[in-house]
């Protein structure tokens, strides 16, 4: 199923896995702090965050390589927190693939099927291995040795080795980190196609926000061992719950402000220089409260002169970077500090002569930007 935005949709009801108050402590370090998360059947979920945020720990607890210190994990309705990895209906694609160097490609792929008890017939294993290799477009590579395969091919072997087992959940631990940019983009598309056709739940761990945004049905932003926000890529981008998410996903101007008045889902706030702007308020805020507002660089506009009825900040251009289809401006304001603005190429043409050093007006359209919650 796809919705109007072209996004794959997953019914919210069926959970394939669930973290229930799950914590993991390594000595003094709390690597996962009371995680609560329902993973939906068939969805593509990403754990996104910088290194040390707890995303890998969460994945390893799902795989069974780590046992939660507190709380539990359910997989397909069964409590599995203390079940060893080899008895879980999940498979993982490892960051550096972890292929068995002493086995051929086919033997690697067959490994999981060979562990089944009662044993599967050899013919069936051969058939399924061949099918899995076909799926990753390595049909003829079965007899090859692992060291004869390129990085991208090894990645596919690792994928085939996992999906051949038809796991309930496929775990992917930074699977594309070792690939070059072009190969990575290709692989992302392939992976997505595979997920759609197999209908298996994919859980991806990545630190690459583009990867997460482009592939995931939902993203779970992690930081300091906690879940910072869960949502679709659009929700995270448009309505980051807090400064951490706003900062990590995409780019944002984050400015301190004071609430003047609220009307429904809108609020009027005063920026540090006294300018009043109208922003989205995802939650109720009392007038007078000190808040932080975030606004994406592409939500701001630049003009040579202020427009009536649109709040404007007069600022000096300090940097201009040309990216082809868009231009990024960095402007300085004596009170608000640095502001990022991104303009489409067309909009630049309306600003003749507005180079570095020029004084421009940064226009804040009503409703652009939003109030951030606490981290």
């Amino acid at each position, binding site marked *: 199923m796809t919705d109007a935005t072209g996004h794959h949709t997953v019914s919210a009801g069926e959970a394939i896995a669930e973290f229930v108050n799950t914590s993991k402590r390594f000595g003094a370090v709390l690597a996962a702090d009371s995680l609560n998360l329902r993973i939906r059947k068939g969805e593509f979920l990403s754990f996104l965050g910088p290194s040390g945020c707890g995303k890998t720990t969460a994945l390893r607890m799902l795989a069974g390589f780590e046992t939660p210190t507190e709380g539990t994990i359910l997989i397909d309705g069964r409590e599995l927190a203390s079940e060893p990895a080899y008895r879980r209906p999940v498979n993982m694609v490892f960051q550096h693939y*972890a292929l068995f160097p002493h086995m051929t490609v086919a033997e690697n792929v067959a490994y999981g099927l060979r562990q089944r008890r009662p044993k599967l017939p050899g013919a069936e294993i051969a058939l399924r291995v061949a099918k899995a290799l076909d799926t990753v477009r390595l049909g003829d590579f079965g007899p090859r040795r692992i060291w004869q395969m390129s990085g991208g091919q090894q990645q596919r072997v690792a994928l085939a080795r996992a999906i051949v087992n038809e796991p309930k959940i496929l775990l992917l631990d930074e699977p594309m980190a070792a690939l070059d940019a072009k190969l990575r983009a290709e692989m992302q598309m392939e992976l997505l196609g595979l997920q759609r056709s197999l209908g298996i739940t994919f859980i991806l761990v990545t630190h690459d926000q583009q990867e997460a945004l482009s592939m995931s049905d939902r993203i779970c932003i992690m930081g300091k061992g906690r879940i910072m926000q869960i949502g679709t890529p659009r929700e995270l981008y448009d309505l980051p719950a807090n400064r951490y998410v706003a900062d990590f996903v995409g780019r944002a101007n984050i400015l301190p402000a004071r609430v003047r008045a609220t009307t429904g889902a809108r609020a009027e706030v005063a920026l540090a220089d006294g300018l009043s702007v109208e922003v989205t308020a995802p939650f109720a805020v009392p007038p007078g409260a000190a808040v932080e507002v975030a606004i994406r660089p592409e939500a701001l506009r630049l003009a040579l002169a202020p427009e009536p009825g649109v709040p404007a900040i007069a600022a000096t251009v300090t940097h201009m970077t040309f990216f082809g289809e868009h231009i990024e401006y960095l402007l300085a304001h004596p009170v608000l500090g640095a502001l990022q603005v991104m303009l489409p190429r067309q909009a630049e043409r309306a600003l003749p002569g507005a180079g570095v050093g020029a004084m421009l007006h940064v226009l804040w359209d009503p409703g652009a930007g939003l109030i951030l919650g606490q981290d």
Partner: protein
Amino acid sequence: MAISQRMARAILLAPAGLWYAVLLVLPLIVVLVYSFGERGAAGGYAPAFTLAQYANLGARWTAFQNTLLLAPAGTLAALLIAYPLAYFLALRVSARWRTTLLVLVIVPFWTSILIRSYAWIFLLGGRGIPQLLSDLGLGDLRLINTPFAVLLGIVYGYLPLMVFPIYVSLEKLDKRLLEAAGDLGAPPWRSFLQITLPLSLPGVATGSMLVFILLMGEYLIPQMLGGGKVFFVGNALVDLFLQSRNWAFGSALAVTLVAIMLVTVTLYMRFLKRIGAARDDVGLM
């Protein structure tokens, strides 16, 4: 540039080449020549061309029998003890303790094997372990000067040579492979058999080879812990050169020992290769 590079290589390899030529190849040729000679009237070597020395090899059959039985047995026993130890050190011990424990494995090497064997003579002698056992009511056990004592001494003496290669191969084993095996449904013992063991085979091969080759030429431990009753080819050689001074026969014995070792080691290498090669042949299963 090419010439100077070649010259540099020649200069670098010269010491080792000379070493092998003077200390390995030349003596081997001498031994080979002597093995076709005769014993001198007052001992030593007298030039001749005869196969008599080789025809007489049967006179040392027991020595060969002991060597060919106890050297593989010792190697196997050392392997069976060393592997779990190496496994424990490489995969189960925290990094903090590992170095200390590794050093403890080598410490015995800091003392001469002679001194250590004397310690074993004392431990295995009537006032050592047998005394303890009899105090515990476990009967009258004779340990010293038995094949068992020799085996024990061998395993004790050569254990580090077995532990280290295995340790190295286990230590560099990618631990994620074990996670991968577990993830794919292999219980720990199966992932040990299917992943850890095959990947540590190079260490096992190196260790076994080292120990086996040294045991084939072993002389000191049987002499000391076997009371002169457990006779290896090495002991026969020492007797022939230092006691009866029959250099020709001694040379024939040495040549035969070297030949047996070459054959055994070659077969062993082939066998290892076949284990590796077998996987190629399997292809898609």
